């Protein structure tokens, strides 16, 4: 039954049809703003699953969920990027396959899959925002809107999840 909860391909806004996949971004919202991540890096998009919190982890780590028998960690991007906004009515998980394994991030909503050509992107801009600039690929222009393009895969694979401040636990030997 879980299979049906997977969102079917979000309608590709791709009039040319032959645009290189590298220029395709998945556009999602967090609070009032829109962000983009490279489509090719997303393994799948699933409706939000019940998560169970895990002790000794950082606040932005929402917990683990059961994705068709696989245990996957979920990072709450709102907390990760300190985005303050009224609680979203629903959210969606973007699942990424990193070198060390699968991990998901929760976002409010998927807006579209869109093509942003390299010419329409301001690469590696020097801006101050709640998102560390090393994770910002660029600012893309899409239909008069500015979209912050984030290297989500890097965020998810570099973030440390361990937080033992409140417990008496010894850190794990690497």
């Amino acid at each position, binding site marked *: 039954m879980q299979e049906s909860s997977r969102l079917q391909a979000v309608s590709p806004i791709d009039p040319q049809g032959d645009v290189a996949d590298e220029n395709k971004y998945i556009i999602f919202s967090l609070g009032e703003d829109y962000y983009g991540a490279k489509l090719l890096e997303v393994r799948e998009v699933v409706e939000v699953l019940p998560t169970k919190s*895990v002790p000794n982890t950082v606040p932005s780590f929402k917990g683990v969920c059961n994705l068709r028998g696989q245990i996957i960690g979920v990072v709450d991007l709102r907390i990760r990027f300190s985005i303050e906004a009224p609680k979203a009515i629903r959210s969606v998980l973007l699942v990424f396959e990193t070198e060390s394994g699968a991990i998901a991030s929760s976002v409010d909503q998927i807006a579209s899959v869109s093509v942003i050509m390299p010419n329409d992107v301001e690469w590696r801009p020097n801006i101050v925002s709640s998102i560390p600039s090393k994770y910002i690929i660029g600012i893309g222009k899409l239909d008069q809107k500015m979209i912050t393009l984030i290297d989500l895969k890097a965020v998810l694979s570099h973030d440390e999840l361990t937080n033992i401040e409140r417990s008496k636990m010894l850190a794990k030997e690497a």
Partner: protein
Amino acid sequence: MVDIDFLPTFLDEASETLERWESVCLKLENTANTELLDDLFRSAHNIKGSSKSVGLIEFGALVHRAEDVITRMKNDEIKPNAAVISVLLECQKVLSDWVEKLRDEPTFVLPTQQILENLSDFLKVKTPHKLQEDLGFGLFDEEPGSDIAIASNRPIHKDLGTILIESGSASAQQVEDAVKLQTRRLGEVLVDAGVVTPDTIKSALEIQKGTGQRQEETIRVSLRKLDSVIQLIGELSIQHAIVCNARDVGRVNEFSSIEAIGLAHKVIQDLQSEAMSLRMQTLDVLFQRMERVCRDVANQQKKSIQIVLKGTEVELDKTVIERMKDPLVHILRNAVDHGIEDAKVRALSEKDATAIITIEGIQTAGNVSIRISDDGRGLNEERILSKAIERGLVSAGAKPSKEEIYQMIFLPGFSTAEKLTDVSGRGVGLDVVKRAVDDLGGSIAIESRLGHGTQFLINLPSTLSILNAVVINLSDRLYAVPVQDVEEVVDMSSIQIERTTQRGRIINLRGRILPVERLATFLPPHTNDSMQSEKKSIAIIARHQSTTVALEVDGIVGQQSIVVRQLEGKLSQVPGFSGGTILASGEPSMIIHLPQIVKSYASLAK
């Protein structure tokens, strides 16, 4: 140019063939016959051919030389005596090490001068003319593989030199000069010559890693097992089709579909155990390696030892086998080095000059035991105890039992050997063995009779994928705790809790004084959760090394067998957990690693 696409396949094949090489050599030591020689020749010949085809020229050259020696044995030109076999075994060791190195560094070249000379010693006898032809390094005129790899646009592994030249860190001439001098790694030569800094080499090596492909582990599976899995999946899809059909026509509750669900349940169980068995391997390869270790140490110490292998057909999970390799080597080295007496001493105590070491695999329900026994001098209780007291590992007045004394040899910092030998005195004690077995959820028992021998019985879980677990409730979350880590579950409401100091609480459990701590101290609720229950009337008793502690939990839900899911990425580094699982309700749950919790408690107490 090394063909990076085929290298992993070659390496897997080579490891297997080299194992065969080793076992044949060990047999040849006892009985020389043409069949064994043919077998050995085939092994060498196969590796030679395949190494050549992936472009490992130097590797092939060494195997070629060994093949020449074997050919001459086959032709009765030299006798397969102990000396030849030793060199061939040495050669096998060099090649095995080489194969392991190649897994990380596809362009690795081992200096082979010494072993080539040793092999050539046997070729020099009688026909010196033929030798001259074979000596040259131009054994293979063409470099097969290289052109193909370029032509087919596959990812090509660049060698270190190329990367350095391309990045402008070194000139082509400098690299070439260094290669000519190469008896060591290229990077080291270049650093010594002052051409590049160690950092440059480091980053170049990282680039090299990136261009290489991620190596995948492989396993050999018998066709019978695979067929049976496919057969079961076939049966499963039939039952699935029946249920689906029933659903489509709205008759799910009819007998036929209920029966199909029941059958599917049985098939799934079979499938699960069959799928698990795919990870299982027989113990013969592991034991063969142990035999080799004993033989090498015995030769080195001029001790005569007969090794008896039993139960080699017993199967064990591949991971367990991998992780038991080093600990077993350790035990056996100790047995040969310390356990077995010198010939003189053996003669005095009227023992056979040849000592016997038995390595045995025993299958019991759900577990596999490995028994290592020798007929050596046995463990000296008094000496162990006095040593342990001397090292401050035990208090002087203690009156431990025999079994407790034996277990002391596993304490960190314990070593009874009066002088360190090259064989087993390398600063690592048997505590390494104990730790490895503990980590796997196993146990070690020792039996010994002074003057008659020692026996180690290592109990191991046959698989790591399915665990029997206690499901506990903590701060409104469910967690699984492996049953093997739980000594006992205690109802705290019936036990008087004594207060020692401000914080310390202790209980008297049937005469044992145990400290009490809340498990939530180590696994506090997540910052985003506010739930915290105060009802703590149940504790689990857990032990790690010398520390035993009663850990309070909020409740025990029950016992169930769980399928262990490895945690991925950074999640696997979160302390306190060894894995995850999906509980019967479908909710994800973490598996608590109790030994680590107890270890943290012990460090807290210090």
